[in-house]
C-alpha cells in the first residue's frame, strides 16, 4: 500500500512539475496574473473606495460576495460542530462533586442532598481537580484585555493596515479561548454562554447580509455600498469605505463567536463540562 501510494504520489508530483516549466517566472511583473486584472485594482481601488489597503478593498467590496460566503462557511462550521457534537441528554448523575475553595475539601453530594448555593465558596468539579496555576491565571488576566483591545484595533484599522474583520475576530475569539484555558470551561460558559455565542455568530453574518440587502432595497445591486450614501450622510466613495467598515464589523462578530463556539464544543466533546 505504502509503495503504491508513494509511486502514485511521485508520478503525480513529477507530472505537475513537468507543467511548471511553462509557468511564467516567479515574481515576474509581466506575468499575465500581474498584468491583466491586478493593475486595475492597484490603481483604482483608492479612487473607487477610499481604502488604501487594496486587499481590504478587494475583499470587502469588489469581491464582497465571496467574503460574505467565507463568513457563512465559518458560521456553517460552528453550526456543524454544534450539530454533530453537542449532547443534551444529561446523564442524571446521582452524585455531584463540589470543592470548597478556601480549604480545598471536596464534598460529594448524593442524589437528593442539598447543594451548596454560594458559588463563590464552592465550585463544581467533575472527577479530578487540577490545581490552578496562579502565575498563568494572573498573566492571562493581564494579557486578555490588551489582546481584546488589539483585536478591536485590527478590526477598525483594517482600511489602513493589514488586518480586518476576520483577523480581528479570530484574535477576539482567541482571547476568550485563553480565558477558558487558563480558568476552566464552566466558568467561561457562565460569562459567555453557548446561546450567546450562537446568536452572535448568526447576527454577525446577518449584519453582512443585511447590509447587502439594504443596498438592494435602496435600488442598487446587492452589496453595492454606494446606495447607502443617503443613509450614511456621506459621499458615494466614502459610503463604500463606511460600508466596508460595517461589513468588517459583522465579519469580526461572526468569526469571534464561531471560534468560541467551536472551542466550546470541541474541547469538551459537546458535554460542556470542564473542558481542557
Amino acid at each position, binding site marked *: 500500500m505504502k509503495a503504491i501510494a508513494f509511486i502514485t504520489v511521485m508520478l503525480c508530483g513529477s*507530472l*505537475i512539475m*513537468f*507543467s511548471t516549466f*511553462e*509557468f*511564467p517566472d516567479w515574481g515576474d511583473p509581466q*506575468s*499575465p*496574473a*500581474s*498584468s*491583466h*486584472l*491586478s493593475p*486595475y*485594482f492597484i490603481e483604482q481601488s483608492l479612487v473607487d473606495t477610499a481604502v488604501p489597503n487594496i486587499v481590504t478593498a478587494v475583499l470587502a*467590496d*469588489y*469581491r*464582497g*460576495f*465571496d467574503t460574505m*460566503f*467565507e463568513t*457563512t*462557511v465559518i*458560521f*456553517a*462550521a460552528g*453550526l*456543524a*460542530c*454544534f*450539530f*454533530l457534537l*453537542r449532547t*443534551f441528554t444529561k446523564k442524571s448523575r446521582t452524585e455531584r462533586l463540589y470543592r470548597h475553595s478556601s480549604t480545598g475539601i471536596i464534598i460529594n453530594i448524593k442524589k437528593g442532598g442539598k447543594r451548596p448555593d454560594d458559588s463563590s465558596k464552592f465550585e463544581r468539579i467533575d472527577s479530578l481537580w487540577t490545581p490552578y496555576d496562579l502565575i498563568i491565571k494572573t498573566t492571562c488576566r493581564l494579557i486578555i484585555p490588551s489582546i481584546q483591545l488589539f483585536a478591536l484595533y485590527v478590526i477598525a484599522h483594517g482600511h489602513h493596515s493589514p488586518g480586518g474583520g476576520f483577523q480581528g475576530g479570530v484574535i477576539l475569539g482567541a482571547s476568550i479561548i485563553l480565558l477558558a484555558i487558563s480558568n476552566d470551561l464552566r466558568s467561561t460558559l457562565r460569562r459567555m454562554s453557548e*446561546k450567546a455565542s*450562537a*446568536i452572535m*455568530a*448568526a*447576527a454577525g*453574518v*446577518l449584519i453582512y*447580509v443585511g447590509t*447587502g*440587502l439594504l443596498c*438592494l432595497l435602496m435600488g*442598487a*445591486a*446587492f*452589496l*453595492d*455600498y*454606494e446606495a447607502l450614501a443617503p443613509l450614511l450622510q456621506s459621499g458615494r466613495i466614502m459610503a463604500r469605505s463606511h460600508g466596508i467598515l460595517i461589513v468588517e464589523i459583522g465579519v469580526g462578530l461572526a468569526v469571534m463567536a464561531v471560534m468560541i463556539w467551536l472551542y466550546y464544543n470541541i474541547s469538551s466533546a459537546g458535554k460542556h463540562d470542564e473542558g481542557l
Partner: protein
Amino acid sequence: MNQQFPALIIIVPLIVALVITIVGWLNKKWCFPLALAGLTIPLFVAVGLLLEVLEKGVITYHLGGWRPPMGIEYRIDHLNGLVLLVIFSVALLNLIASREKILAEFPEKAGAFYGLSLLFVAGLAGITITGDAFNLYVLLEITALSGYALIGMGNKHAPLAGLHYLIMGTIGASFYLLGVGFLYLMTGTLNMVELSQMLPAFYSSRVVVFAFFFCLIGLFIKMAMFPVHGWLPNAYSYMPTAASGLIAALTTKVMIYVMIRISLLVFTPSFVFVNTLLTSAMVWLAVIAIVAGSILALAQKSLTRMLTFIIVAEVGYMVGGFWLGNRDGITGSVLHIVNDAAMTLCLFLAVGSIRFRLKSDRFSDLNGLFRTMPFTMIAFVVGGLSIIGVPPTCGFFSKWYLIKGGLAAGSYEFVAALLFSSLINVILFFRIIEISFFNPQSGGKNDDHTIPAASGINEAPLGMVATSLISATSLIVLGLYTNVLVGRVIQFVL
C-alpha cells in the same frame, strides 16, 4: 424587483438559515414554518427566472455593482434556470417530508438541521448560477461542509463515513481550486466568460491542459465517478433519512452540471471534444462505472445501499452521455440530470418512509409491505419503473436520448452498458416488488418484531406519503412533457 431575482434566490435561503439558528434557541416551533418560507419564496423566484430566461435569453447580474472582470457576475442561462428549479423543488419536497423524521431523530437540534439544510441549498443554488470560477469554490465548500455535518448525524457508523467523505471532498475541492489557480496563472482572470475568451490562445499550453484535468479530477471526486466513488455508498446509506432525499438527489447531479458548465462555458467544445482519445477514454470510464455500479447494486441486501450503487451507475450515464460529445448525448445527459434528481428523490423519500416505520430497510424485513404501506410502495414502484426506463415515466426518455447519442457517436459499448444496466435494474426492482407484494407479512423465518403485528394499513405520516406521491407523479409528468422540456429549454444549452 425583477432584476434583483438572481441575488434574491441565494439571499433568501441564507437569511432564513441564519434566522432559524437564532430562533432555534428561542422557540423551536417557528423553525419549520420559517424553513418552509425560506424554500418556497426561492422556488417562485426560480420559476420567474426560468420564464424570463426563456423570454429574453441570458440574464447577468453584477454583485456589488462592479462590472464582471473586477466584480463577481451571476449568469443565468437555460441550463442554470432549469437546474435551479430542480434544486428548489427537490429541497422543498424533502423539507416537507423530513418534518416528522426530525422530530423522531434529533428533536432538540431541529433548528441546526434546518439551518444546515438551508445553507446546503443556498450553496447549491449559488454553484449553479455563479459566473466566477473562484466563487464556485467557496460555494462548493459551503455545500460540502453542511453536507458533511448532515451525513455525520446518521446512525453509529455515519461519523466515519462522513469523515471519509470530508477527506475525499476536500481533496476534490482542492484539486478544483488548483485548476482554477492554473487558469488564473495563465490568464489573470477568474470570470468564466472572460476565461473562455482568453483561453483559446493557450490551448496548446500544457498548463491549460493540466488545469482542465485538475478541475475534472476534482469534480469527479465530488460527483463519485467510478474509480473515486468510494465515499458515496457508506455516506449515503448511513446518513439520517431526514437529509437523504436532499443530499442524495442533488449533490452528484449538481456536480455533473458543474462539469458540463466548466467544459462548455470555460473551455469551449473545440477544446474539450477535439481529442478523440480523451473522449473515448471518458466514455469507457463511464461504461465501467455503469457496469460496476449495477453489479455492485445486485450484491446489496438493503434498500438504501442498493440505491447508492444505482446512483454510482447513474453518474456513469450522465458523464458518458456528456462525453459522447454529440447533440443527442448532451441532451440526454442534461435531461437525465433533471430526471435522475426526481427519480432519486422519489426513491429516497419512499425508502425514508419505510425506514421511518420499520426502523430497517433490509430486504428480509419488507415482507407484505404492499398491504401495510400501499401508497409508499406505489411511489417506490413508479420510481423503480422510471430507473428501469419503462415508457410513460421520464427515465425512458433520457435513456432514449442517451442511446441515440451513443449510436450516433458509434460507441456501441456505451449503448450495451445502458441496456445491461436497465436489465439489472429490472432484476433489482422486481425482486423487491416480489418480496413486498407476494411474500406473506409474517411468513417463514422472518417474523421480525419490528414489523407491526396488525395487518391493517400502517402508513407513514401524511407529509411523507404526500411528498412521495407528488414526486412519483412528477416522474410521469416529466415523462409526458419531455418534448416540451427538450424543445423549449434544453436545446438552447448547446
